[in-house]
């Protein structure tokens, strides 16, 4: 049992460990033998498509779900263990939770909302007040103590929710899609604020989302989950973008092109309606004679001298870049070009172009 833990600055949770967690709802197995360690002082993003089990992981850590197997440890202390029949209820796990719909209590003022966790831990009024003020400072809501949630905008309610989570625990926060209900501009702003908050306090944060953009922007490390709940890759944003572990991770970020290739006579050809010569040298990283070339739209450039020819099917001007849909025999690929200058060359429909491919990656082909 935890003693009543008074929140101190700089007190760090050691680490959060999940081992062999299994969760099923009836027949449907959501998590199978899931293990993960979260290092202290980091923002770790858990990202995946809906239904992949990311929310289930968060709820298992919080104690809202009882897994059928496995252990959950925070700071080396067991919160849940199926084998040892340990199941510490949520109110004794000392985790700060931020919910998707904010879950700010409408019948309590901003002050009372934020003070609640401290009241539950039997702190006196004199002890509570400075901590609430501190939390309000962290989220830029000083002066709003007496407001009721109905008087606040969505973004302000979210900040109150974060402040409340901080008073619950400034060591360890779990955030479940906290910004999806905000509009685009506000989302950007909140991400910056969350990052700055974490840097000031050194809090360990688990950030659950399906929004790749938010995860890339915010998190130190990202766990990418496949639809069946298994881990595809754990890494920094740099690693995920530059060294994706597999095809799922590669295509998870943005929209990618996949072109089937085949090796013949020591040369690499595009394996389309016609075979088009692509490269005269074989890339060592090809998994076999038949493979799938994965290439991001931004990594294809127009090159008049290239032997690979294609036709522009559509050209869309988006301001900061052009989206081109380019036709190869038998398939259409996307090419993106940043608009560097007003006078940069743009291409119109039905124009014939040459394509050069940078940063290629090869993956397995299903029909290989």
């Amino acid at each position, binding site marked *: 049992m935890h003693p009543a833990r008074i929140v101190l600055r700089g007190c760090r949770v050691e680490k959060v460990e999940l081992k062999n967690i299994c969760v099923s709802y009836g027949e449907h197995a959501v998590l199978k033998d899931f293990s993960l360690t979260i290092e202290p002082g980091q923002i770790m993003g858990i990202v995946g498509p809906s239904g992949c089990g990311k929310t289930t992981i968060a709820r298992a850590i919080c104690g809202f779900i009882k897994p059928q197997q496995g252990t959950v440890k925070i700071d080396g202390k067991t919160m849940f263990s199926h084998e040892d029949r340990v199941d510490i209820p949520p109110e004794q796990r000392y985790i700060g939770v931020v919910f998707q719909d904010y879950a700010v209590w409408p019948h309590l003022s901003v002050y009372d909302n934020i003070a609640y966790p401290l009241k539950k831990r039997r702190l006196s009024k004199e002890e509570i007040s400075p901590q609430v003020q501190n939390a309000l400072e962290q989220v830029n809501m000083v002066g709003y103590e007496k407001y009721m949630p109905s008087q606040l905008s969505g973004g302000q309610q979210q900040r109150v929710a974060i402040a409340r989570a901080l008073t619950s625990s400034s060591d360890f926060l779990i955030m479940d899609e906290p910004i999806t209900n905000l509009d685009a501009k506000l989302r950007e702003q909140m991400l910056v604020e969350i990052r700055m908050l974490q840097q000031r306090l050194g809090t360990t944060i688990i950030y659950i989302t399906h929004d790749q953009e938010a995860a890339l922007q915010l998190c130190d490390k990202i766990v990418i989950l496949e639809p069946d709940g298994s881990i595809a890759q754990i890494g920094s944003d740099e690693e995920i973008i530059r060294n994706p572990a597999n095809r799922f991770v590669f295509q998870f970020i943005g929209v990618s092109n996949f072109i089937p290739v085949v090796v013949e006579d020591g040369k690499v050809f595009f394996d389309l309606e016609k075979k088009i010569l692509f490269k005269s040298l074989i890339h060592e990283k090809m998994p076999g004679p038949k493979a799938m070339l994965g290439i991001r739209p931004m990594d294809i450039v127009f090159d008049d001298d290239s032997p690979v020819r294609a036709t522009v099917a559509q050209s869309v001007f988006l301001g900061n870049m052009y989206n081109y849909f380019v036709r190869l025999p038998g398939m259409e690929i996307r090419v993106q070009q940043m608009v*560097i200058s007003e006078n940069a060359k743009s291409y119109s429909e039905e124009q014939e172009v040459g394509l050069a491919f940078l940063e290629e990656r090869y993956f397995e082909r299903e029909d290989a």
Partner: protein
Amino acid sequence: MDQIVLEHVTKSFTTKSLGTVVAVKDFNLSVKKGECFSFLGPSGCGKTTTLRMIAGFEDLSEGSIYLDGRLVSDKKKNIYLPPEKRKLGMVFQAFAVWPHLNVYDNVAFPLKVKKCPNSEIKKRVALTLHHINLDGLEKAYPSDLSGGQQQRIALARAIVVNPDVMLLDEPLSNLDPRLRESMRFEIKRLQKEFGFTIIFVTHDQAEAMALSDRMLVMNMGNIQQIGTPQELYHKPVNRFVYGFLGQSNFTDVVIKDGRAFLKEDESNLLFAGTSLDLKGDYVMATRPNAIELNRQDGYRTTILKRTSRTEFMEYLVSVGKGSIIVQTPHRNFFRVGDQCFIKIKEPKWYNPESKDIEEERKRRNTI
């Protein structure tokens, strides 16, 4: 041929809390036949009000509106043609598909109103549903279908009478982000096939630029600029249009003899080659995507922060004590703390702006 003409259109109304508000001021526009034209602006700028005046759901306070050469609204002459007589197609933001009618009856409705014979109705509905890729769903009810499909029912219903003009009110904002791009193509394709003129209203600048032949930017009831997307993006007439059409950096500078120096440190040369007419304090506006980031030469800077985006990498680089944002493909990779160089390509220069404009916009957003 001018299909839709608005002359000196003004709309003002009085509310209890804010007094008299001029929602649309002296609006002048002619849209050509077959064009795809968009109204772009922040919420509360008057774009939807203008669209509703064209449709006939709102009356004008001043001015006139002509459709196909015919005067349909004129306050002074007391002319007002009701919406049902204007022969327009309209698609609403929340689709407004009738839940008590199935897909067939929804799309057939405008024809039934016209009292077309049943056999013709059947033919035309089938044809329209085919064009919109809703074949086979005639007997389904809207509540059984997805948002994208409901959007298509709304489009089909508007197209089935072959209108010359289609009005779209924020047509894509209620759709899943992934669906928006394919819907954009649908709309463009339908325009090519059926040949109608489109006016659509949006607050999303990427959407407006992707779809429009010409567009306008509005703010607080006033048209700021009319032109093609490229014209507005590359040659914006003022700072508002510049900032609204895409991400921007604004840096305070002092220009002397064709050279721009940082205002905070006048020895720090940012850009050489401005027009020689410019002298004194200015704001330098640059696009993050139009700044070259390299390790060879240019203005010396340090990488302060790296943010990964799905399509490109964003770097915050130091400029004096401040910073600007640079966007570049992922493969152009730097680490925080790296020393590097930037080359600013085509900055624009604006006069420093006042804060009153920001206040007025906030006030209108409460309407």
